[in-house]
């Protein structure tokens, strides 16, 4: 794990707060693509100019422009094609293809589990809540490890670490307390300390559960993050309707 650099402000079971460091636990990289004994680099480049895209070619030469491509290579713009692309800036195009010179307005579209659009509304910014003045709070809600893995899917794990001798004592104490009880404790954000944790503006909200492990003077303090329960999706209503329809049609056939 690389040296953690981001900061987390949290409280312990006694309500004492401290600011510590954290980093994501990442799995080791698997295989990479390459050539044995040679360095290869991944590169992105321009393969067609705007005048070589389908719509432009169809407008200039008609829908059946294959012959024009063979005869005149109109799709190849030697000034642009082949240029390597490094850093790029994102821009937005209006529906007529023109570049927007002012920021777009935004709408948030909500889809249900069935994929159907449910609602459109103005988006609200969700501020991060883990490193500001308000600490991430120890809620006191404890859950056994066995129960936790049967209720939640932990999609990310952060490892907390100290930044000086005082925070070493602080984190080791938390890890010791949790390890002795063999439980996870839920951590909450926001003014009341009950909100989900948000690590950056408009980032995904997560429920956070702290786990402690201790080996003498060494410790591991892990913040497991979950944004979904371990459960099956409900059967789609359409499938239920379909099965009813099958029964109905069978009944209808029988009736006839």
């Amino acid at each position: 794990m690389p040296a953690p650099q981001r900061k987390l402000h949290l409280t312990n079971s006694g309500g004492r707060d401290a600011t510590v460091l954290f980093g994501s636990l990442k799995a080791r990289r698997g295989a990479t693509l390459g050539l044995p004994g040679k360095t290869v680099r991944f590169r992105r480049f321009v393969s067609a100019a705007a005048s070589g895209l389908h719509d432009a070619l169809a407008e200039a030469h008609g829908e059946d422009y294959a012959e024009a491509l063979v005869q005149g290579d109109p799709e190849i713009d030697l000034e642009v094609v082949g240029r390597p692309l490094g850093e790029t800036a994102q821009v937005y195009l209006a529906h007529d293809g023109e570049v927007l010179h002012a920021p777009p307005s935004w709408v948030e579209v909500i889809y249900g589990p069935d994929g159907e659009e449910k609602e459109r509304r103005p988006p609200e910014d969700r501020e991060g809540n883990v490193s500001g003045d308000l600490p991430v709070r120890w809620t006191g809600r404890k859950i056994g490890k066995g129960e936790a893995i049967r209720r939640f899917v932990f999609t990310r794990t952060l490892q907390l670490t100290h930044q000086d001798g005082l925070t070493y004592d602080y984190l080791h104490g938390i890890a010791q307390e949790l390890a002795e009880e063999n439980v996870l404790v839920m951590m909450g954000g926001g003014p009341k300390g009950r909100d989900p944790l948000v690590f950056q503006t408009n980032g995904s909200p997560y429920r956070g559960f702290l786990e402690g492990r201790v080996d003498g003077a060494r410790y591991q303090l892990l913040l497991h993050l979950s944004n979904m329960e371990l459960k099956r999706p409900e059967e789609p209503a359409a499938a239920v309707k379909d099965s009813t329809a099958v029964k109905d049609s069978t009944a209808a056939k029988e009736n006839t």
Partner: protein
Amino acid sequence: MARQIVVERGGTTSAFDFAKVDRSKLYGRRRRVPLDPTGEPCTRASLSEDGTVLVRSGMTAQGYYTDEGHWVPNGELVSLDEAGQPKEPVKTTLGEPQALDGPFGPERVLDLVPHALYALTPADVDEALVASLRAGEVYELPFAYRTGYIEDTALLVAGEQGELFALVGRIVEPIWREAEERIPSVLEDDGDDDGDLDFEMF
């Protein structure tokens, strides 16, 4: 017939049908859409660093190149391990019995960084295995969705209501943190301190 997750434990094989579960299937999802001044959705494009090329969808290609600038066709690329040595492809584990390791406690799940969750439907299973999972035990097997170079770990777990799942990802090992790692070290004492406090040095 759809492929199955097949496991073997104590000489008995069990087969499960499986279906991917993601967050949007449980709770739906939200998407932010940019709108132009007329209220129509915008499309995204990129502007090259020097500002001379507006890159729209369909205008780019990508590939691997040597340091000399020669393109390497995908068919010539091989998978390399961390030491840069060629790696043998891994055969898909689906449909082939995989030996189960375990049972493990819940910490094994907490050490997994998952990237996929599958809901399992028992097709032809060892009831003792199902009972063990429903009692809270965890089993591990190698998992490769398709033949290739990616081999993951799958953990079989039961949910609160006894439904069965496979969590697929990689096991990670957190680092043990020690007091001294963040405290700057000082020079070793060379033993010539005679105990006198020297104020002339100021």
